[in-house]
């Protein structure tokens, strides 16, 4: 299972990652980051396949995928 | 080895001077009356293992000079009046990115397409920055083919020293006329180290060449830095020739080819016992202030130009109302001759 780390301070809430996650493991947070933007969060219970789609599509390069 | 003397046109002398100074990049676009320069570079710079590019336009040529200078090369371009108008875009960027470069303008008649006859009507666009923004180019105006050769070499050193574009301002007469030139044995000094140049960031932090300062206050700060550099150049780089100023009652002021004709008129008048002097500004920016600081209020200055009075403004500013400043000029291809100058001097003497 892969580990998904989202840098929420860099996230601009464009939601592209959320749209492309095949398992729907990324959710829009109700909270705001320091730039007053709604960021996305990875479901802590989710089992990531490591397909990288979210990281590849992220314009801010703020998603890291680790083993 | 003895000194070598060759017969060569002004355009070719500038090209040869550049190669002698270690110029290793030239980009240009054909325009009369400077075509001998680009042709000379095509042959001789390539032989000297430099890069020669015939660009698709003046805009491209000056941007190539920008790129080459950013990469650390000694870069040059040349053109004539309408082409220089186009190059002003890149000249402003060079100034904004603090890049050294040498730009040659062999002036022709204007405005618009004008004609291909000699003129000095680009004095304003040369000495007032020329493009957008608060910047200056250092402007040198050779008066002979030998001086064109020598000053071209100086231009590269000044451009590197002060990190700004230097313009050599000549006219069609200077570009086309052939004169003997003594080639200097000036060895190419080790070129100044350019730690800011783009070479790939091996072993150092990345270098950025740019003129863009978006954050509030940054551009103003940068402009003040430029102004400080310009003030230093003003103090250190005035160049001029002065003749017979001690007893002169009328002082001719002329630059470039026009100064040669003025000098010839001066010698005739001196032969007749008339007390005439001459100031020939060699640096047009910074404009020489020193020779104009004369106490005798009865002196008259006569500015002679192949334009309708452009350098005239700088003479008036330098004289600052202490003495009378008169003007004689022709343009659009008209070149004043000695007789016309002598006639004007006689009028001033009797008035």
């Amino acid at each position, binding site marked *: 299972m*892969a580990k998904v780390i989202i840098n929420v301070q860099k996230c601009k809430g464009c939601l592209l990652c959320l749209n492309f996650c095949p398992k729907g493991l990324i959710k829009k947070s109700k909270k705001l980051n320091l730039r007053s933007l709604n960021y996305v969060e990875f479901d802590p219970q989710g089992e990531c396949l*490591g397909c990288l789609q979210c990281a590849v599509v992220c*314009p801010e390069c703020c998603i890291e995928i680790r083993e | 080895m003895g000194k070598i003397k060759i017969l060569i046109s002004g355009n070719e002398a500038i090209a040869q001077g550049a190669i002698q100074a270690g110029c290793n990049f030239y980009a240009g676009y054909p325009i009369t009356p400077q075509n001998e320069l680009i042709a000379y570079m095509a042959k001789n710079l390539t032989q000297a293992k430099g890069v020669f590019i015939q660009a698709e336009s003046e805009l*491209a*040529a000056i*941007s190539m000079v920008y790129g080459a200078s950013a990469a*650390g090369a000694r*870069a040059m371009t040349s053109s004539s009046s309408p082409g220089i108008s186009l190059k002003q875009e890149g000249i402003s960027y060079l100034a904004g990115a603090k890049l050294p470069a040498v730009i040659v303008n062999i002036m022709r008649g204007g405005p618009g397409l004008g004609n291909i006859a000699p003129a000095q009507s680009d004095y304003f666009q040369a000495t007032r920055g020329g493009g957008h923004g608060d910047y200056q180019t250092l402007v040198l105006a050779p008066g002979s083919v030998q001086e064109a050769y020598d000053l071209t070499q100086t231009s590269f050193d000044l451009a590197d020293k002060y990190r700004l574009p230097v313009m050599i301002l000549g006219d069609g007469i200077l570009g086309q006329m052939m004169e003997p030139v003594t080639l200097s044995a000036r060895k190419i000094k080790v070129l100044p180290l350019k730690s800011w140049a783009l070479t790939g960031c091996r072993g150092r932090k990345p270098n950025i060449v740019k003129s863009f300062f978006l954050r509030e206050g940054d551009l103003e700060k940068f402009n003040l830095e430029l102004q400080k550099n310009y003030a230093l150049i003003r103090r250190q780089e005035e160049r001029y020739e002065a003749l017979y100023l001690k007893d002169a009652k009328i002082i001719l002021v002329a630059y470039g080819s026009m100064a040669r004709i003025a000098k010839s008129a001066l010698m005739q008048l001196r032969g007749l016992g008339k007390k005439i002097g001459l100031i020939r500004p060699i640096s047009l920016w910074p404009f020489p202030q020193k020779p104009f600081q004369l106490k005798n209020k009865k002196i008259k200055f006569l500015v002679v130009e192949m334009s309708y009075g452009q350098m005239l403004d700088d003479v008036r500013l330098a004289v600052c109302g202490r003495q009378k400043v008169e003007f004689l000029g022709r343009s659009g291809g008209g070149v004043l001759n000695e007789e016309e100058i002598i006639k004007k001097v006689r009028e001033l003497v009797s008035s």
Partner: protein
Amino acid sequence: MRTFKRPESLYDNSTHYCPGCGHGIAHRLVAQVIDELGIREKVIGVAPVGCAVVAYDYWNFDCSEAAHGRALAVATAIKRVHPENIVFTYQGDGDLAAIGTNETIHAANRGENLTVIFINNAVYGMTGGQMAPTTLLHQKTSTSLEGRNAALHGYPLKISEMLALLPGVCYIERVAFDSPQGILKAQQAVKLAFENQINNLGFSLVEILSPCPTYWGLNPKAALDWIQEVMKKEFPLGRLK
């Protein structure tokens, strides 16, 4: 298991781009390819005028600014002075295909050994969404209020197809940021364009159909869908040369 982390050639900065903008993706692709090829210390990038004007704030290697449209003239000179360096330009549609058309065509025609990353988002973004040379017919912009009209504004300019005709050109491919798969294909194309330069093969250009959600008036996902459904019809993907 595959992993993903920020490339070394991309500074750990936030961009100034709007949410969902393709520039961020393209910057990262370029940085990733440069890392993969191990050429970070040899690369010199030339940034355009347009939204990506401060691309050098994001890239961790030597960069130059160029006047609007003149990136390929600047890059030509840098490469000729330093043939051993890897030189690329990163340009938008206004920069490359309007004000810089002359520089683009002639650098390509000289067969300059350069890599060009051409971002086609069919609008001028930096200045507020005006009509670009690549704006689609009927597409509304702030200077084509009723939509681009062929009779008044001409047609979307297919500069990549034009460049593919030139003998000096080595490689041209059009790719699209319409999905993660499209982005991965784009990455391969960008890599090939850099490899060509390393192998001294000449002028290589990758045109990327890239989203501008702000001036298309679409949300980021819908912007990707618009590339997929509309833009690709006008600008077909694939290798043009």
